[in-house]
Structures are given as C-alpha cells and as structure tokens.
C-alpha cells in the first residue's frame, strides 16, 4: 500500500534532487561573485583607483594575457607537477608508516615520538638543509612538499587503524581471515573514510608547501609568478596567481572526493538537506 505512494513520489523527488545538485554549488558562488561585481563597480565609479587591489576585469585581462603567451599554462603545470610528485611520495610514506605504527604497538613506540618531534619542526626550517642536500632544483622542492603531505596522512592513517572497531575485527577472526585477507576485507574498508580525509588534508598542505618551495628560488611555477608580480609591482599578476591556486586546489580536492565517493557510499552520513 505504501509502495505505490513511494513509487509515485520517486520521479518528482529525483528531479528535485537533480535541480538541487546544480543549484547548491551555485549558491557557494554567490558571495565571491557579488563581492567582485561590487569592487568592479567601485573602481569604475572612481571610488578607488584599483592600483593595489585590481578590479576583476583587470585580473581577467592579466589571466587572458598570461594564458595567451602560454606563461600561465607553463607555470601552472610546473606547480601541479611538483605537487603531484610531492603528494605521491608523501602519501606513500605516510600510508605505509601510519599503517605500521597503527597496527603494531612496538613500531608505534619506536617510531611515533621521533615523528611527532619532527612534526613540531616548522617545515620551512628544512629548506636550507634540503637545498644543501638535494640542490636548488626540483628534488628539494618535491621533498619539501612530500614532508608537508606526510604528516597529516601519517596521523590520519595511524589514527584510523588504531580506531578500527575490535568487534568488527573479531568478525574477521571468526571467519578465519589471514593477515592479508584481514587487511583487504576488514581493515582497508574500515579506515577508508578517515583515509580520504587524511588525503585531503595532506593535499591541502601540499599546495601550501609548493608555494614555500617556489618562494625560495624557482624560475617557474605559480609561486614564481607571485614573487615576480611583487618585484615588478604587478598586483594583478599576484591576484591572478592566487586565483589560479584557489582553482587548482579546489579542483584537486574535488578530484579526491570524486574518485573516493564510490568506496564511501555506505557511510551513514549526517546529511545536510
């Protein structure tokens, strides 16, 4: 009896959900667009000369110019490339060490105090050392980014493994899962939600650290574009680089969410209607 009512309700609900899926992100654009439009109007009306804070139209033109000469793509690519490699290494190290430290109490006692000590070091402090060790080119930058990515991933994975419900692990034991099967069928799915959050936190730090790396002597990259804009007095270029960072950071984060969502569909999430 209720089945009929539910079925009748489905198409309507689906179309409503579809519309909401388009409209909800659009809501997030409302504030930045309104601010940009207001600023544009303010500059056009002559309330400000817009030299230090360029209006959106100027930034857009700078963007277009940089893109036309291929500079934007070149710099963005250099930065993405560094972040990608640094992220890869940081995630690999963080995942492996985090999993081992979470799984084995002995390793935890051996490893964790040292790592927590290293974590307390401001990461920029490594830069002189890394430059001495790995030179001024890509290697030192990538390693610095990897260090930044490592800690949130390590902490996230370790915490997730430690907090896997003993009761769920017991289910695996009752069905006599061996070590590897236990990892694949119980531990891995159980830590997945926390792992995705750790990856996102790590990626966020990766974008922070790439900037630090590029500030310290780079001839390419969005960070170079920022420094270049400062030294040549081109605020529009600085803002354009900042906007590029925002777009790339958000896009890469969204990519993680997109790739991981099929594995997390089971989660009983606090749904925000």
């Amino acid at each position, binding site marked *: 009896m209720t089945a009929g009512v539910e079925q009748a309700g489905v198409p309507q609900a689906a179309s409503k959900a579809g519309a909401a899926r388009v409209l909800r992100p659009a809501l997030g654009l409302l504030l930045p667009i309104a601010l940009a439009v207001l600023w544009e109007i303010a500059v056009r009306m002559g309330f400000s000369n817009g030299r230090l804070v360029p209006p959106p139209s100027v930034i857009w033109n700078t963007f277009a110019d940089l893109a036309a000469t291929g500079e934007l793509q070149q710099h963005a690519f250099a930065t993405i490339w560094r972040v990608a490699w640094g992220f890869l290494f940081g995630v690999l190290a963080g995942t492996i060490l985090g999993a081992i430290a979470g799984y084995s109490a002995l390793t935890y006692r051996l490893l964790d105090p040292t790592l927590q000590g290293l974590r307390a070091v401001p990461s920029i402090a490594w830069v002189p050392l890394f430059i001495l060790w790995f030179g001024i080119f890509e290697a030192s930058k990538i390693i610095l980014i990897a260090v930044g990515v490592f800690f949130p991933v390590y902490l996230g994975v370790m915490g997730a493994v430690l907090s896997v419900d003993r009761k769920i692990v*017991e*289910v695996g*034991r*009752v069905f006599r899962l061996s070590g590897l*099967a236990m990892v694949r069928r119980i531990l891995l799915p159980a830590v997945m939600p926390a792992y995705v959050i750790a990856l996102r936190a790590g990626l966020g730090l990766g974008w922070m650290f790439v900037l630090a790396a590029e500030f310290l002597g780079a001839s390419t990259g969005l960070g170079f574009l920022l420094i270049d804009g400062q030294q040549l007095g081109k605020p529009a270029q600085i803002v354009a680089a900042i906007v590029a960072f925002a777009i790339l950071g958000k896009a890469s984060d969204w990519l993680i969410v997109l790739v991981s969502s099929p594995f997390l569909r089971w989660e*009983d999430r606090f749904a925000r209607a």
Partner: protein
Amino acid sequence: MLVLDRVGKTYPNGVRALDGISLAVAPGEIFVTIGGSGCGKSTMLRTISGLDPPTQGRVVLDGTIITAPHEQIGIVFQEPRLLPWLHVADNVGFGLEGYPKLERRMRVAGALDRVGLTDKARVWPRELSGGQAQRVAIARALVPRPQVLLLDEPFSALDAFTRADLQDHLLDLWADLKPTLVMVTHDVEEAIVLADRIMVLRAHPGRVYEEIACDLPRPRDRQSAAFDFVKRRVLAALDRSLDRGAPTVEEGETRAAAGGGLWW
C-alpha cells in the same frame, strides 16, 4: 559432540573468569547457559569459539581441540556486527569467499529467504532495523553450515515482540540443519522457550551451578503450567546461585514433578 573438559579462564590481570567447566553438548542439542551478569557466560562462549582460548582445560569438537576460530563453529554476537561497507547479501556471504560464485549466490539467496529478508539483499546494513540486522547476522553465521552455532545474548538488545519473533525464527532455522546451539542469555523465558538443557552458571569464578533439563514439547506455550514450573525452577536455581537464598520451589514439589517423569 562438543566437549568442555575442565575449562578455566584466567585473565592476564589475574581475574579468574571461569573455573573447571565440564560439559558435553550432543549434536543438534540446544544448550542454554544462564546466569547473573559477570558470571562468565560470555567468556565461556568465547573460549568455545576459539576467540579467547581457555587457560586451563580444553574445548574439544569431535576430537579436535579448539584453540582458534574453527570453520565448524559459527557465532552470533549481542550486536549484529554487520560490515557497514557491504550490502546485506555480501554480509551474509562473507564466510563463503572461497566458494564458487554460483553456489555462493544460491546459498546467500536461500539464507535471505529463510530469514525473510530477500527484498533487503541490496540494502546497506544501516538501513535495517535492529531485528532485521540480527537476522542477517544469524544468516551470516549459518550460511557456511557450521556444526555448532554459538549465540551470545543475541536478542537482548531487541524489544519484547521482536525478541519473541526471532526466537521462533531461530527455532525454524535450527530445525532445518539441526546445528548444535550453545546460547548464553539472562532471559529465563528465552532459555525455556529454546533449550533442551539449561545450565545455571555461578560467578566469581564462573562455575557450573546447576543443570536443568527442559524437554517440554515444541512449540512451547509460554502460558502453560509446565512452562511456568520450569521457569520457577530456573529462577530458584538462579536465585540460589546469586546467594540470595530463599528457593521459591519447595524440594517436595520438585521431587513430585520428577516422579511424574515430566522433565527428565
């Protein structure tokens, strides 16, 4: 035949949870252990399951000493413990990983049908009610067709109606394959509805206090006088096991009943 031979369990901190438990459970028998909280009944079940092997004595199933989880022993916990990332059907088939795909699917479908949840096969565990989830847990434990099924207060978290419903359900499932059931509960009525034999456990450390045969004809009528009599007997034994004294069933009455040949 499941045999516990002077099974004891002492935890590393020195607490003795079980002491010299000896019993034999026949194939297909429904054996229910009852006792106050903390009397070691769950510990006993965990030693049988191989999850926490005994520190003294041994658990033997058909000549095999059980020291680790065994394929012929299934267990249902107090909570369903379904894996939240697997659909209901995959939860039921969790113990059939090594089986051919077709047989696995057939067995899972059969089990879901038996517990009346065929329409929930493609649903996440979080979408089930408490009773449904526990039915899935029972199906998951029974699908590999274990010889022994252990049940650790499986219905204690459910409301009275659902509980009675699941007790009947469990008896139906038991009638299919006739596994040995070893169940732990603190619900006297539940024990009498299900059991062939009831064991009262006494705490500190857990020891066999009394065994009460329970061979009322099935299905058992909770309102019948015979049911009530067994219930009073079990309650009295429980009372005495808790050192509260004051048995509620007089010796004479028990003996008269025994003379009548009703219970043993």
